[in-house]
Structure formats: structure tokens, C-alpha cells
């Protein structure tokens, strides 16, 4: 409508004008939804114009989340499907009203009320996963009050991140990565790891609880008559999370009253989101025999998954056939790498940078990187203003050039390598501080090559997926990206190029890009959609457990002095166990002493698909089995004599929630005991 028309309309009907104003006022609330729809349209039109075969190799850049001021929904009797992306660096909550029970699915991302600085509460789509342990005298009284709690136990969200950026010794970050860190007790107060003694520490488990609790309360503020504990709730975890980490996540949810939460792997969530956004058109973009590679590069982790498309009775089926290792390498590493490049440049002139300047540089590099990737400038000036009130004196300046970005990010993180290359792992220095096991090789393409080669046989059992003879890795046919990193077309294009170069050497067709994904919010959106799918409203990705699990048993062989006893690996949960199934290993007996703790070594394998329950391995390749934290079982004394030996056999079950449960069953009566994932190693 032209300006002229508008004026005319306003003059004639003021009442109508008022209504349109009201509508404008409503708009921001729905902004996310609208964005999603427009993207769907884009996907649809692509499908319509393409002759089913080649899809445009274009990434759609998701708009940066804007803030919304959501309205409070006081209606009763509503039911929502809620998905929470519990990220390493931030959390997102997406939800959809499923009260009606029809097939319509329209979802929104919730603005999470949080403190952004002392005494200031704002709504943001992302809740930064940070927790700050403020000093008693640090903040004004009552300045950490939230709309639902005048004195929260923990300071989380944007305020924690911003305060922590200046006082890192009091900042808890990356709690999620610690959950999956073998060798630490996730329920003991260990974070912040580098804090002085007087700072009160929290456990990674408590931090996770705090984030969940915050989102639960923020939800209740907006939906006072529909508490989160009564909605269909899906939490996402990395596909590479081990059973103990999954269990901890569910336990954390349970501890804040969200006992019905179920788990979903993040790459699967990303694919669900893509499916939802194509509005049924996905069947035209994916075809039988496809192997979809989901590459999810988050702030701190890289998560890889393979999902095969097969056909059964004329219906397309999706099966998650393989997941990658837990790689602690992500977008934050990229920003840091750029900052250190610029730092080196500045220090060449004899200047020394203080830590706060490096940090400011990292922020600057993040923005500069995005500018370089999204326009054709050759360099972006970087300015780190003085911390004092005088800006210009003491300002640090440099620039980030396109060449630097290309060489550091593209060549550094996505080097052109052959498919036979593997990540380099150097022996770690003897005096390493206790910290997270960050990936040593930043080359994501090398990690990818290793993953595809390792999972070469992942789809062997499926009909319609055949690798040519002599193939050295599993050939993906389509790629779905997730994570803000891939907003930079240069990066996604490089990954596609490298993949295609590998495929070309083995005469396989090039990969297609599954376009239309919302790179920032897809995981939360997909999680909410999964809640809807579970009601039988859409295609469900099958998969089950992403690994087979083994207990270590000392073999009955004469011991050799000086050598540790040989151990055997006994399979107690096979690969691909579906939710809601259980298996028992009835032909092996263990004698357990009542009241005494028995510990087992615990292994997993994400390649051994043939092993069934009870398979004993005497020998295995180093990269076949990886050792997890020990597991333990203690037989309680209930009704038994202390010191009595009970004969038991082992069994396992995958719960509806998506966690693995190990149990010991008595061979004589109905007694059974839970085997705990030991977190006290």
C-alpha cells in the first residue's frame, strides 16, 4: 500500500487505523513464527522449480533473533509441546500449542526473562548457559531479583556472562561439557575450576539444574496456568553424550520437577526442524538410499550424525545409523583463533595486550568475521577502546583482513585434506591443568574424515544403501548444517567442497544441501516438533542407542606378574536398542556380596553393530571400544543377611525417556538392583 493510500484510509476510517495499530503491536510476539513461514515458502518454491534432482547449494541465513515482549497467556486447559535446547553456551526454549490435537503445528520461541545487568530484567530468546558466583559485597542489595524470585540461588543468564567476562574466576561456563567428561564427579562442586578457595563452587549438575529451573520459572511467568511440568517436554543432548551424561541431564530435570522430560539427540532435532519447515515437502527432497550427514557445530562442540533414508511399504523411513565422538571444538574456538591472530599482529610492534583486551578483541573478531563473510570488504578495522572514560587515548586498533579470516578459519578449521587423513593427537603435556579435554586438532574436516571412515559400514544392514566396492568411507548423499557458524557461506561451502572432493575420488555423486534450516534455533524448534511427532503426527527418526555397551570382566587366566589382568568385554546392551526395550543376560552369573559395592569397568563402541547381548570380546582394536566412567552396584541389605553372596545376572533397558538403565537381577528371586553410572571416579 502506498503512503498516499494509507493517508487516505486514515482520513476516512480512523477506527480501522486503530485496529491496524493493534495488529502492529501484536506483531513482535509472532516475529519468529512469521520468519519461519517465509522460509518454508522459500523451500517450497525451490522444490517447485527444481526438477527434483539438483538442489541449490545455498545456505539460507537465519535472521538474528530479535527480542520479543511476550504476552502472558492466562488461558487454562492448554497443552504445549515444549523443546529445550540445553546448549553449551546458551539455552533456547521453543514451544507449540497442541491443545487442539489437529495436524496444524505452529511454534514460537519463548523470550526468556533474565537479568542482563544488576537490577535490569529483559526478555531474550537465548539464555546464556553461564552461572556467576557473586561476592557478597559485589552487587547492590536486591539487584538480582527476578520477577518470580526476589533472591534466586544462582545468578544465570546474560548477567552471569557479562559479569563473568570481567571476573572469570567467579564464572561457571560449559557445564554441559563437564557432564560428559569422564574422570570427574559431576555432582561434586568443582566449578569454576580455576577459582580461588573462597569462591563457593557448584557442580556441573547443579549448574544444569539452575538453567532448567530458570527456564521453568520464566515459562510459568508467561503461562501461569500451564506449568512446564505438565507439558510435553523434550530436552536435547549431544548425540555423543554417553549414558551417564544423559542420565545426569534427566536427573537434573527431575530435580527441578520436570520428571517427564524426554531426551532427543541434537542432530536429530535439527533434522526434525528441517522436516517441519518443509511442511511435508521433505519427501521430495530426500529419497530412498539417501544418507544424510548432519554437521552440527555449536559454540563449543561439534556433533556429527548420519541418518539413512529407506523405504518400507512405500513410506520413507529415517534411521539414525551413526553418531560421532564428543568433539570439544566449535564456533568459540574460531573467534578465539582470530583474536590470537590479531593479538600476534599487534604484539609484533612491541605492545603487550592485557587479558581484557584479548577478550574485547575476541568480541570484535566475531563481529568482524561476520561482516567479512557477509559482504565483499577486504578488511574490517578492529578497535578496542580504552576501558576508562576517555575513549580515544589508549585505544588499541588493528584490522582483520579477509586473507586472515580465510587462512585462520577456512584453512585452519576446514583444511582441504584427503579422506585418509586423521585428526592429529599429540601426547598431552604432563603438567596439564585439570580442565576439559578440548580437541587437539582444530581441523573439523579431519574429524569428519575419521568419522565417515569409521562408520563406513554403518548403513550396511539397510536396504537400498549400497556402498561401491572399494569405498573407504561412508558416502553421504545430502548434508544438513546446524549451528550459527554456518551462517558464513564461505565455511559451509568449503565443507561441501571438501566432501565433494572425497566423493569424487571414489566416483560418487556430489552431496546435496538440505536448505531452509534455521541455523540458530533449529535444535529447540526440532525438539518441540518431536513432542508433536511423538503423538503420531509425523515421521519419526528411528535409531535407538548410538553405541553398544560392555562391562569389563577379569578373565579367568593365571595372572602374569607385572601385567594388569587381561580383561574381557561382555556386551550388556547391543547397538541400536530402541526406547522401551530391555534385554537380559541370563546365562552369565556374578556373585555379589550384599552391602558391598561392586564396580565394573564400562566400555562403549559406536562401530560394533553385530554384537548381541552376551557377546564376549577377548580382543579389540583400540578405536573400537572406548572406556567410560566405571559403573557400580550396591546390593541393599533389605531382607538379606549382611555378607550374603547373591547370584545375579545383568540386563539393560532403554527407557522411554531415552536413557540407558543397567540392572542386576537375582537368579533366585525377583530381586533386582539398579547399576549406577559411577560419577565418583
Amino acid at each position, binding site marked *: *500500500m*502506498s*503512503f*498516499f493510500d*494509507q*493517508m*487516505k484510509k*486514515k*482520513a*476516512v476510517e480512523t477506527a480501522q487505523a486503530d485496529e491496524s495499530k493493534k495488529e*502492529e*503491536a501484536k*506483531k*513482535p510476539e509472532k516475529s519468529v513464527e512469521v520468519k519461519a513461514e517465509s522460509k518454508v515458502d522459500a523451500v517450497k518454491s525451490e522444490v517447485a522449480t527444481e526438477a527434483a534432482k539438483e538442489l541449490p547449494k545455498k545456505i539460507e541465513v537465519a535472521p538474528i533473533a*530479535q*527480542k*520479543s*515482549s511476550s504476552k502472558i497467556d492466562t488461558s487454562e486447559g492448554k497443552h504445549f509441546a515444549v523443546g529445550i535446547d540445553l546448549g553449551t553456551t546458551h539455552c533456547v526454549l521453543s514451544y507449540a500449542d497442541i491443545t487442539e490435537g489437529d495436524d496444524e503445528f505452529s511454534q514460537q520461541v519463548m523470550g526468556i526473562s533474565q537479568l*542482563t*545487568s544488576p*537490577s*535490569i*530484567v*529483559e*526478555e531474550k530468546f537465548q539464555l546464556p548457559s553461564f552461572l556467576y558466583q557473586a561476592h557478597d559485597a559485589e552487587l*547492590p*542489595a*536486591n*539487584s538480582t*531479583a527476578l*520477577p518470580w524470585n526476589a533472591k534466586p540461588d544462582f545468578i544465570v543468564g546474560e548477567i552471569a556472562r557479562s559479569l563473568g567476562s570481567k571476573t572469570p574466576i567467579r564464572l561457571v561456563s560449559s557445564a554441559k561439557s563437564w557432564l560428559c567428561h569422564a574422570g570427574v564427579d559431576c555432582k561434586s562442586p568443582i566449578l569454576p575450576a580455576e577459582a580461588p578457595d573462597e569462591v563457593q563452587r557448584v557442580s556441573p549438575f547443579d549448574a544444569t539444574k539452575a538453567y532448567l529451573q530458570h527456564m521453568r520459572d520464566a515459562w510459568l511467568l508467561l503461562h501461569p496456568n500451564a506449568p512446564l511440568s505438565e507439558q510435553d517436554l523434550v530436552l536435547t543432548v549431544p548425540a555423543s553424550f554417553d549414558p551417564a551424561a544423559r542420565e545426569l541431564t534427566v536427573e537434573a530435570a527431575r530435580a527441578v520437577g520436570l520428571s517427564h522430560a524426554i531426551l532427543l539427540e541434537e542432530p536429530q532435532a535439527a533434522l526434525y526442524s528441517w522436516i517441519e519447515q518443509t511442511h511435508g515437502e521433505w519427501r521430495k527432497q530426500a529419497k530412498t538410499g539417501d544418507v544424510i550427514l548432519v554437521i552440527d557445530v555449536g559454540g563449543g562442540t561439534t556433533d556429527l550424525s548420519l541418518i539413512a533414508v529407506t523405504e518400507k511399504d512405500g513410506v520413507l523411513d529415517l534411521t539414525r545409523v551413526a553418531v560421532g565422538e564428543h568433539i570439544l571444538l566449535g564456533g568459540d574456538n574460531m573467534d578465539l583463533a582470530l583474536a590470537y591472530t590479531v593479538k600476534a599482529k599487534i604484539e609484533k610492534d612491541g605492545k603487550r595486550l592485557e587479558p581484557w583486551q584479548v577478550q574485547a578483541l575476541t568480541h570484535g573478531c566475531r*563481529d568482524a568475521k561476520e561482516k567479512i563473510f557477509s559482504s565483499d570488504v577486504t578488511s574490517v*578495522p578492529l*578497535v578496542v*577502546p580504552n*576501558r576508562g*572514560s*576517555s*575513549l*580515544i587515548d589508549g*585505544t588499541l*586498533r588493528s584490522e582483520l583482513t579477509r586473507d586472515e579470516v580465510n587462512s585462520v578459519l577456512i584453512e585452519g578449521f576446514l583444511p582441504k585434506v584427503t579422506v585418509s587423513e586423521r585428526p592429529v593427537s599429540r601426547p598431552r603435556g604432563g603438567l596439564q591443568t585439570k580442565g576439559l579435554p578440548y580437541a587437539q586438532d582444530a581441523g573439523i574436516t579431519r574429524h569428519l574424515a575419521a568419522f565417515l571412515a569409521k562408520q563406513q559400514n554403518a548403513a550396511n544392514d539397510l536396504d537400498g544403501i549400497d556402498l561401491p566396492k572399494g569405498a573407504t568411507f561412508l558416502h553421504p548423499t545430502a548434508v544438513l548444517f546446524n549451528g550459527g557458524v554456518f551462517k558464513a557461506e564461505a565455511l559451509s561451502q568449503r565443507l561441501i567442497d571438501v566432501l565433494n572432493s572425497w566423493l569424487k575420488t571414489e566416483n560418487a555423486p556430489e552431496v546435496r544441501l538440505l536448505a531452509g534450516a534455521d541455523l540458530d534455533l533449529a535444535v529447540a524448534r526440532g525438539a518441540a516438533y518431536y513432542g508433536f511427532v511423538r503423538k503420531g503426527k509425523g515421521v519419526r527418526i528411528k535409531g535407538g542407542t548410538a553405541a553398544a555397551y560392555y562391562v569389563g570382566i577379569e578373565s579367568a587366566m593365571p595372572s602374569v606378574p607385572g601385567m594388569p589382568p587381561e580383561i574381557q568385554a561382555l556386551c550388556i546392551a547391543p547397538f541400536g536398542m530402541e526406547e522401551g526395550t530391555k534385554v537380559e543376560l541370563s546365562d552369565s552369573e556374578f556373585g555379589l556380596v550384599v552391602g558391598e559395592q561392586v564396580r565394573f569397568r564400562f566400555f562403549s563402541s559406536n562401530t560394533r553393530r553385530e554384537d548381541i547381548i552376551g557377546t564376549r570380546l577377548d580382543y579389540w582394536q583400540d578405536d573400537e571400544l572406548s572406556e567410560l566412567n566405571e559403573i557400580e552396584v550396591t546390593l541393599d541389605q533389605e531382607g538379606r543377611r549382611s555378607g550374603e553372596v547373591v547370584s545375579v545376572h545383568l540386563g539393560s533397558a532403554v527407557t522411554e525417556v531415552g536413557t540407558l538403565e543397567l540392572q542386576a537381577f537375582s537368579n533366585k528371586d525377583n530381586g533386582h538392583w539398579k547399576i549406577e553410572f559411577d560419577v565418583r571416579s
Partner: protein
Amino acid sequence: MDITNYTIDLALKPTTFDLWHVCLAGTVAILAGALILTLLSLVMCLARRKETTDAEPQVKIVEKIVQSEPIVQIVEKIVEVPVEKIVEKIVEVEKIVQIPAPAPVVLKEANADAALQLLYLLQNDARFIDFIKEDMSGHSDEDVGMVARVIHEGCNKVLDEHFSFSPIAKENEGDSITLLEGYDAAKVRVTGNIVGNPPFTGKIIHKGWQVTDVRLPSTVQGYNSNVIAPAEVEL
């Protein structure tokens, strides 16, 4: 002929009373009467005008009358009728003046908290106060420009985060536009040659800005909004 014979003797008085003299005397009397009338009406007019300039709002009405009727007519038609009309209007206007005077417009006072909050956001995310309050005289344009980039970017981020803007005119600046009668004068300001009645046609000089949404953060009770940036002390 001898010219001196025609010399007029002013001291001479008419000795005869003939028709000629009667006519002459009549003319003099009529002229004198007309002069007196004219002077009288002029004095009255001036007196009225003085009265009207004292009360502001009445000016317009008088001016209208003066403009619509030529002065010559006033002089000729005069006295009785127009004077009466004018007197009537004075009474009317006086009534109007009495109404608006006792009802003063209540001005809305600006909310200082919101303004301070915006300053807080601009300072914290964009170092706005630092920049504006800095003495620029000692610095080169290059230095200032460098820092201005940072400030500009930050301020833009703050504005985008907390406000939604849209231009009022959807057309481009420089385009021609027609404003219909009843257009919203608060949204469109016409300038220059404003004559006649709408529709007005003109050129868009500035497309205008309006805020369609404000998303200012809420604050906890007891928050001191006067603190734009706390002093920072590193330990």
C-alpha cells in the same frame, strides 16, 4: 481692455441677493457638511481599531472584514450598519476568550526513568556518554573516526534491540507525493508554499521515522536509574 478692471476685491460684499449667490452658498454648505461627516467617520474607525488591537483573538475577524470589503465602500456606505455588526462580533469573541483561558492544557511530563535507562543502555553497550563527553579538540579526525565506528555500531545495536523503526513515507525521498484532505499532520509536516486546500502535492524531503515498538527492559524495585555507569574498580 484694461486688466485691472477685473481685479477681485475681497472686501466686497454682495449687495444683491440673486440666484447665483444662493447656489454658491448652498454648495459651500453641502461641502462643509460632507467634510464634517467624513472626518467624523474616520475618527470613529480609528477609535474602534484601537479597541480591537487590545484583545488578541479579535484581530482576525477585523482583518477579514477589511480584506473582503474595500475601504472605499466603508467610507461611502458607512456608518450605521457596519458599526452595529462590529459591535455584535465583539460580544461574541469576548465569550470565546472567556472559555479557553481558565482551562490550561496539562502538559505531560517526560518520564526521566525511561530516558535515563536509554542513556544507560547507550553507555553500556556503546560507550555513548564517554564519546560525547570526551574533549575532541586534541584528537585527529582519524582517531575520532576510528572510535566513532565503534560507537556507531554499538548505538545502532542498542536502537535495534530496543526499538522497531519504520519510515513514515513508504516512497523514496525525492519522489512526488499527494496528501489528501484529512492527512495526519502529526505524521506529515508540509513546508514551503502552503496555499489553497488539500490535496497537496509535493516532494518528499525526509521520509520520516516512527517507532512501532519499544522494548525497554524492566527494572527491579530500588534500582537507581541515575547511575548511568558505575565506577569500575579492578582488584
